[in-house]
């Protein structure tokens, strides 16, 4: 295992030190591993709290700041945060207008946030669960679909709505609309390595790739021969478009790297994805290409498409100032 780390058991703790030192947007409660805005929003605004296992940086802590999250709870590597941690973040982030929990659909995350909401006492909590991964084809036989890329877009869009002063019900309804309109699919070329484990989670021969991976270094739905980029682009685009009609509305597209794939490959892949979308009649109104929701040092990428509308685009374009996403501020 070749990584820039100290004690493999303390990677999350140590990375939060560097985040706090480098990102002016945040302060860190190191005891509870909660990342807060350096400058909390005004009283009377809805607060957004998210969190999840670590290893997906910049998600979630890198999205704390003006126009996006109010607090992010960092779990252990690939392990959801605990209820007391989320409850603490919820109580501290609340500005009197209630808190939206943004939860990716994994058994652990859902249960821990559920228990946290039970612990939250007087703070009003609404929860939105993202479940956008179309790799899980028959989700009636699973714990539903995994929450992946749309989480990034949702945190931005709901964050902008909260900043504008909408109440908790409105922000939650918008967030659910975003969650419902997002679809993703991921493909891995290599397995990542969990630092405390010290070896790759799975072995992948040089001439194969995993299709339908999530963001926890887990194997995907199926293993296929390594394919050139145009073919990979088809494997990403088709299942998404088969699952949800993306025509007739402006779409936000995110081509996301899993951590160890360099930008030039993501750009190249987007160059293959874009014409496929055009040919399918999909109008991409906004694009993100880069590492936004990663899986440690996995090489791979995922595509997320969000069926948007004018309000969502307006909120997308609103100013945001976080370590991981920034414009207009």
């Amino acid at each position, binding site marked *: 295992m070749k990584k820039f780390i100290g004690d493999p058991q303390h990677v999350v703790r140590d990375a939060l030190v560097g985040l706090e030192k480098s990102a002016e947007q945040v302060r860190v409660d190191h005891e509870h591993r909660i990342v807060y805005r350096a400058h909390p929003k005004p009283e009377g605004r809805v607060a957004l709290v998210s969190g999840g*296992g670590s290893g997906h940086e910049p998600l979630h802590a890198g999205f704390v700041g003006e126009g996006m999250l109010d607090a992010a709870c960092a*779990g*252990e*590597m*690939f*392990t*959801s*945060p*605990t*209820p*007391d*941690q989320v409850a603490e973040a919820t109580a501290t982030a609340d500005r009197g207008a209630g808190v939206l929990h943004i939860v990716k659909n*994994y*058994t*652990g995350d859902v*249960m*821990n946030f*559920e*228990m946290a909401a039970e612990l939250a006492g007087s703070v009003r909590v609404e929860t939105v669960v993202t479940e956008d*991964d179309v*790799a*899980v*084809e*028959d989700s009636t*036989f*699973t*714990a539903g679909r*995994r929450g992946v890329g749309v989480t990034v877009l949702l945190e931005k869009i709901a964050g902008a709505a909260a900043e504008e002063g909408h109440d908790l019900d409105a922000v939650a309804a918008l967030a659910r609309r975003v969650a419902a309109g997002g679809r993703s699919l991921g493909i891995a070329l290599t397995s990542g390595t*969990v630092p*405390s*484990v010290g070896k790759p*989670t*799975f072995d992948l021969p040089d001439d194969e790739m995993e299709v339908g991976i*999530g963001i*926890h*270094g*887990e*194997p995907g*739905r*199926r293993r296929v021969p390594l394919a050139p980029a145009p073919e990979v682009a088809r494997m990403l685009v088709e299942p998404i478009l088969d699952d949800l009609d993306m025509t007739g509305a402006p779409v936000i597209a995110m081509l996301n790297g899993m951590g160890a794939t360099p930008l030039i490959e993501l750009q190249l892949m987007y160059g293959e994805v874009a014409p496929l979308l055009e040919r399918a009649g999909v109008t991409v109104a906004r694009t993100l290409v880069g590492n936004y929701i990663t899986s440690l040092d996995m090489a791979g990428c995922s595509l997320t498409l969000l069926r948007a509308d004018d309000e969502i685009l307006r909120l997308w374009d609103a100013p945001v100032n976080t370590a991981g996403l920034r414009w207009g501020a």
Partner: protein
Amino acid sequence: MASLTAAGAAAWISRFADAVDAQRDHLTDLDSAIGDADHGGNMSRGVRAAADKLAADPPTHLDDLFKAVGMTLVSTVGGASGPLYGTFFLRLASALGHEEEADPAALATGLRAGLEGVAARGKAERGDKTMLDAMGPAVEAFEAAAGSDLATAAAGSADAAASGRDATEPLVARKGRASYLGERSAGHVDPGAASTALLFRALAEAVAQ
């Protein structure tokens, strides 16, 4: 030992912690195959913290003791196993009440409450390839032997947990992370079932003397 005492319960948790530490890499290997390679780390972090807590400040009553274990697991493990094992011990604590010891019948009631708590929290069913597939048979075996002595009942539950664990191997997962693998999840033992087998083996060992 006719009844489970607070000292016996502490010994249970301590043995469970030792077993999880010893099997940490194995649990993680199981989770690597069909999950996200953290079950060994999750469990060892949490159960060690629970054992340390009991050692530092030993409760005299079973409800306080298992509540401390449950709360510690909930607040240190995270993931799916934290709330599930946490709920198991919190329900066990409630069911046993403010007593200094529990006879086999009382413990059977407590274990059943724990099992139901896990099922309610996780909404899984038997056969979904989860810890329930070890925990269910273990609790049933304990109940069936609750008329005999504690050691016998615990030994039977440990054996049943181990069989339940082994029986998860051919199953296709329908809950938790492994379910995303679909058919590919078959052919691997469920990591949570494996840690549950350790839990009941630790109980059997703790009450064997």
